């Protein structure tokens, strides 16, 4: 079976969504010489679906029968010759469902229930999915959405996120953002990384998606930059009006709703980086303009999002109050410790349109477009501590898809499109010019503004992709060319600067180290792009064996001409600032499915392949923009004054900032191997076991090339200290400039692709369906993730210590448990629907996931390397005299793992497990001959699972203490144990959410 036969291609609705619930087949009595097939088609919400075109082909492909499902969703094929059949369910606006191996026996009626997901409106990229996807979707029985195997079965890796989203079910695939190891923000779908659709400054966090209609994004709510925010879905209460005339289906769908969640300012961890959704209304129209040849769909949607900015941990409030009071004419009462969580609103307008035209039999054209606008609502801009991060955003896209079938066994598809996305981040509030962000450091509280760079980012991309498909015998061959040209524009103003106050005690005097910026980055434009050739063949040498093999060759083009080098740096170091074009790379894929015999309950799946990522344009933007236009000024002094130092030891240091891309820089590469075994135990019950291994290399890592390669000393924690340590009244810090290897330069950020990670996991899953609306899916995955690419909490590669040959490198320590390692993952999902005319249904999803790991550290001002306060990750050990004092803290945070040198291993501690529970209850309030009224209640995040950034500082360096220097190199720092170790600093998830709505189906 090929999956994407001509019948599937015929489906005008290229917007084929989500899941097909596993078909259930059973046998009933029929005539003795022939059999029959009967079934019901339902929508994802369980409602019968009318107007569905049901195609039945016999196993040889010789005959084909088509019926249309009746108003109650039922269909029937009587008098069928015994044998194997294939069934295709299609309807405009729904993803087709292909069911293979439907066995008809004499005298029996096979029963089958299929479920088609109510799709988003037709949106451009989805076209690519059915063209490539149907084959690998067939035969899948686990989960309601695309499983990992299905996703891996995508013949071409590197789909933009927008390609993948529509293939996600609301409950099947798990979706997480921002956590792809070392690769900056990107998306994980069931653990499989997919790159964002655009510059990370433009997305692929929720910003990018917010401007999509809800239907398209399926209400994705994932905080931008959150390491692991799972996507939770479920449509809002909506009103559907559908008219069926013959085979023409007109639909008017109106949606509206209000989502609220508890939102208390008293909760110190209540610091959602994202939005709580507010009111939302939308209208969708779709139907035929000219029957069978011209269809349209259009929708518009308005939303207001209540958004909370990162608040502060309660323990840090005092410092902030002092800071507030340092601002002239501050509006706060002295000693006011009440720090309400600042909120704001985003207004989002989004819309789309689509026109499908069949000018001639066998030829289809689809023109699609979408637009989205986002503007900040009113913000309280009077708070300099938390200067408002203003955002304006827009998205626009237009695409044209042409599909021509050449006879019954060949098709050509050409896609061309243009997309534009623009984001403008800015800070408001008084004092911004002077102070910029205030950081109480390491790694700790980030107050004010957004961790992302400010500025305006715009991306315009043009893509062109001709593809072909050829069916010949037991081969189904596909291939094509993909080409994308991207034009990026980056304008990043230099903020006032950053003040670093290491501890509460230190900051009580409002003194600290500071970093401010001189000069302005010019607005830069650069071009990047990639092109690829691919070919894939699905070969079915026997009915019980299918082998899919593919090969892709990809070229990526980097903006080498736009990089302006620094002659001074080149003279000093001999390093070139030039960007090299990556070599063309090949990525083979192989996937197989095998049953020992035609009727065997066993099924073996195995796959291996190489996936190639791309160089993140956001990282490229830094390389292009940071070419010496900005100078960093480092010094020490009182907050808000950018004071000059009092003597030569504390004199300001000025240095040019550069960002370089490493030699032979290459995008990430993932090699994966998957082996799965499933067995149908009894009808409706299936067990699956799966082993997976993925090894990723060429992950980007960042280090400071200009950090002095020789250490100044080692503190009692075993950390290497670089640069001269200076005790400046209230804080210990590095003498400005003394940690610079080459004078005149500040941080020289080197982006190099020498990181790697591995992920190995074993999964056991059990699925049960009774065919009457009850289902249960349970899976448990144990995994181990290791890498050498630490991330910041914002998902960017963390600055590493240098890698000079002399010292400072600690690769053995870096190689260890990944920041993303969450070994246990249990997922239980169940649904029960009552029988009867006025019924009800209850669905629940429970997820248990290991808490995220973190590495114990010390909070100080001895590493102030980048825009952020985060120091390079370094191993520490507990001084013997403090062991008893910290033992309870370590136990509280499940800390374990000491290396042979007595130091904590990387990510030796772990936050508590995350329990997540979502419920949906639907109750039919009433029904008539032509109408049904349904009430739906969604209770999301009932357990209030909250992803947080823990305070990893086990020790705090108290700058008011005494610094002892013991020859030859031991620095005894004044340490204090941090009682807040392991406590949440910032929460990253919204609280519980409740959605209530009514649905009237007429």
């Amino acid at each position, binding site marked *: 079976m090929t999956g994407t036969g001509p019948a599937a291609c015929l489906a005008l609705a290229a917007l084929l969504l989500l899941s097909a619930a596993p078909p259930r087949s059973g046998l009933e009595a029929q005539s003795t010489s022939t059999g029959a097939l009967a079934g019901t088609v339902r929508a994802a919400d369980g409602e019968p679906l009318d107007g569905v075109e049901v195609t039945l082909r016999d196993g040889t492909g010789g005959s084909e029968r088509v019926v249309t499902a009746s108003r109650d969703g039922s269909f029937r094929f009587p008098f069928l010759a015994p044998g194997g059949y294939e069934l295709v369910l299609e309807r405009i606006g729904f993803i087709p469902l292909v069911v293979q191996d439907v066995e008809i026996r004499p005298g029996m009626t096979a029963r089958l229930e299929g479920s088609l997901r109510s799709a988003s409106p037709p949106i451009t990229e989805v076209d690519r999915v059915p063209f490539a996807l149907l084959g690998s979707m067939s035969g899948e029985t686990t989960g309601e959405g695309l499983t990992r195997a299905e996703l891996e079965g995508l013949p071409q890796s590197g789909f933009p996120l927008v390609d993948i989203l529509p293939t996600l079910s609301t409950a099947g695939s798990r979706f997480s953002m921002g956590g792809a190891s070392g690769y900056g923000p990107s998306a994980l779908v069931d653990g499989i990384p997919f790159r964002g659709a655009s510059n990370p400054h433009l997305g692929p966090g929720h910003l990018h998606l917010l401007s999509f209609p809800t239907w398209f994004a399926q209400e994705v709510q994932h905080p931008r930059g959150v390491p692991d925010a799972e996507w939770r879905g479920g449509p809002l209460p909506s009103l559907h009006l559908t008219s069926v005339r013959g085979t023409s289906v007109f639909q008017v769908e109106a949606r509206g709703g209000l989502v609220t969640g508890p939102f208390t300012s008293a909760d110190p961890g209540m610091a959602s980086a994202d939005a709580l959704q507010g009111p939302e209304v939308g209208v969708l129209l779709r139907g035929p303009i000219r029957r069978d040849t011209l269809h349209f769909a259009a929708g518009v949607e308005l939303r207001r999002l209540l958004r909370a900015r990162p608040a502060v941990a309660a323990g840090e409030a005092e410092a902030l109050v002092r800071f507030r009071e340092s601002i002239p004419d501050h509006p706060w009462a002295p000693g006011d410790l009440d720090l309400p969580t600042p909120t704001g609103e985003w207004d989002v307008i989004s819309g789309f349109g689509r026109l499908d035209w069949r000018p001639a039999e066998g030829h289809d054209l689809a023109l699609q477009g979408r637009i989205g606008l986002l503007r900040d609502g009113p913000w309280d801009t009077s708070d300099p501590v938390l200067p408002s991060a203003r955002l304006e955003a827009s998205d626009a896209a237009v695409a044209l898809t042409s599909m021509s079938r050449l006879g019954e066994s060949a098709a050509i598809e050409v896609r061309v499109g243009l997309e534009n996305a623009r984001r403008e981040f800015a800070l408001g509030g008084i004092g911004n010019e002077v102070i910029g962000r205030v950081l109480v450091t390491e790694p700790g509280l980030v107050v004010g503004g957004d961790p992302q760079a400010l500025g305006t980012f715009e991306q315009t991309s043009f893509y062109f992709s001709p593809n072909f498909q050829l069916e010949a015998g037991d081969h189904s061959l596909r291939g094509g060319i993909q080409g994308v040209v991207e034009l990026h524009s980056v304008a990043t103003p230099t903020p006032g600067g950053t003040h670093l106050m290491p501890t509460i005690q230190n900051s009580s005097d409002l003194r600290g180290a500071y970093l401010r910026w001189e000069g302005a980055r010019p607005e830069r434009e650069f071009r990047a792009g990639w092109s690829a050739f691919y070919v894939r063949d699905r070969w079915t040498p026997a009915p019980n064996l299918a082998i899919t093999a593919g090969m892709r060759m990809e070229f990526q083009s980097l903006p080498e001409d736009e990089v302006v080098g620094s002659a001074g740096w080149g003279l*000093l170091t*001999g390093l070139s600032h030039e960007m090299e074009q990556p070599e063309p790379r090949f990525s083979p894929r192989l996937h197989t499915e095998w049953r020992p015999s*035609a009727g065997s309950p066993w099924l073996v799946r195995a796959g291996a392949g190489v996936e190639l990522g791309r160089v993140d344009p956001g990282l490229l933007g830094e390389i292009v923009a940071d070419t010496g236009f900005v100078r960093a000024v480092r010094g020490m002094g009182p907050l808000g004054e950018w004071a000059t130092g009092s003597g030569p030891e504390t004199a300001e240091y000025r240095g040019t900032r550069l960002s*370089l891309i490493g*030699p032979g820089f290459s995008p990430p590469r993932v090699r994966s191997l998957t082996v799965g075994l499933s067995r149908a135990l009894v009808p409706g019950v299936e067990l699956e076991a799966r082993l997976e291994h993925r090894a990723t290399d060429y992950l980007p890592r960042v280090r400071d090339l200009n950090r002095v390669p020789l250490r100044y000393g080692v503190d009692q924690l075993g950390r290497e200290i670089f640069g001269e340590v200076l005790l400046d009244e209230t804080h210990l810090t590095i003498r400005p400039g003394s940690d610079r*290897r080459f004078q005149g330069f500040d941080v020289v950020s080197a982006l190099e692709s020498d990181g790697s990670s591995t992920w190995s996991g074993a999964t056991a899953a059990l699925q049960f369906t009774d065919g009457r609306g009850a289902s249960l899916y349970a899976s448990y995955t144990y995994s181990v993730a290791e890498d050498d690419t630490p991330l910041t909490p914002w998902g960017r590669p963390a600055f590493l210590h240098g*890698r000079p*040959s002399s010292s400072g490198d600690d690769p053995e320590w870096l190689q260890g448990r990944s920041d993303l390692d969450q070994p246990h993952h249990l997922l239980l999902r169940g649904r029960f629907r009552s029988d009867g005319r006025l019924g009800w249904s209850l669905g629940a999803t429970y997820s248990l996931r290991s808490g995220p790991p973190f590495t114990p550290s010390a909070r100080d001002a001895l590493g102030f390397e980048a825009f952020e306060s985060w120091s390079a990750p370094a191993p520490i050990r507990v001084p013997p005299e403090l062991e008893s004092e910290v033992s309870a803290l370590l136990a509280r945070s499940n800390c374990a793992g000491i290396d042979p040198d007595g130091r904590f291993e990387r990510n030796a501690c772990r936050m508590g497990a995350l329990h997540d529970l979502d419920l949906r209850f639907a109750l039919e309030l009433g029904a008539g001959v032509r109408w049904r009224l349904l009430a739906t209640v969604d209770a999301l995040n009932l357990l209030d699972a909250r992803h947080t950034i823990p305070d990893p500082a086990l020790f705090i360096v108290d700058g008011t203490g005494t610094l002892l220097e013991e020859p030859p*190199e031991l620095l005894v720092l004044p340490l204090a144990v941090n009682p807040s170790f392991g406590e949440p600093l910032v929460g990253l998830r919204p609280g519980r959410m409740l959605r209530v709505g009514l649905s009237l189906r007429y």
Partner: protein
Amino acid sequence: MMIPESRSGLAATTALLLGMVLTGCDGPGSEQVFAIEGTGSIEGRAFLDLTRTGEFGEGDRVFPDLEVTIRMEGSRDIVATVVTDADGRLRVENLVPGTYRGLPDPTALGDSLEVTGMDPTLIAVRPGQEAAFSLGASFPILALPTIMAGSEGRRVYAEGIALNPPGSLDGDAVHLTDGMGSLRTLGVTGLGARVGDRVRILGHTQRIDGEMMLVAGQGRNLTAGQETVEAPSPTSVTAAQASFPGSAPELASALVRLPEVTVESARTSFGRTTLSVADPSGTVDVVFRTTLLFDARIETLEVGMVLAVTGLLVPTSGGERREVQPRIGSDLSVVSEAPPPDEPED
């Protein structure tokens, strides 16, 4: 047969899968990272900065056998230690690129030498290149009271205002003052200066006649070519203050003025004239070249003359007494002639 066919296909597939996993095992290597490759060197010179200009030049001497340590900026680790050769030159090779400091061995400098110049202070070592470095060390410049109160035998610089032109006093002596004290330097050569010029004299300290002086000095006029400042005003003293060090020790080597002293005796020998002058406090000797009388337009010296005398205090008699040494003719002036001898009573 269907099954065998599928099994053979499966076997082939398995082999392909394994092959696929094994291929591409070449991960990223060192070629993916920046390497500031190569090494650089430092070529330098250490010199005795006798002119204290901070740069090697005429009048300076090379500094052999000086131990110099090379440290990377921001680190306390010593990267290299070298000893200057006979020409004062040093060379350090195989340094990883970066910023370094060159520091002389403090024990080699001791208390008597100090660094006068490091050019550059921070040495940027570049791959494949030779960074120039010079290190100047010299004797310290001490305040005159410090010299006076210090120990003998130190080699130091004295810096102050010249109180007399070179050659005006016996023994090529030049007296200096820095506002806090005065110093007598002896044997000063190479110094062309006028009274009031700021000069720096290198010499070793020696106690002569109980008073610390700077001997064998090499002088340098720091105000050469510039407008001469007004000469320091002398301190008015009495004869007793001038004569007895114990009564006014702070006046050692100072420029003093005896406003009205009476000549009690005068003697001339080998071109030098010694006057014993007195005021009500006592007597003090005034010693000068006899030719100074012509400059002062004093034709005769008579007992009983009242003179105004300006001069430099110089110890005598093993430090028990001091004498006043006028420098130029204007240091002597007649206040009143000697009274006529008493007429014999008739």
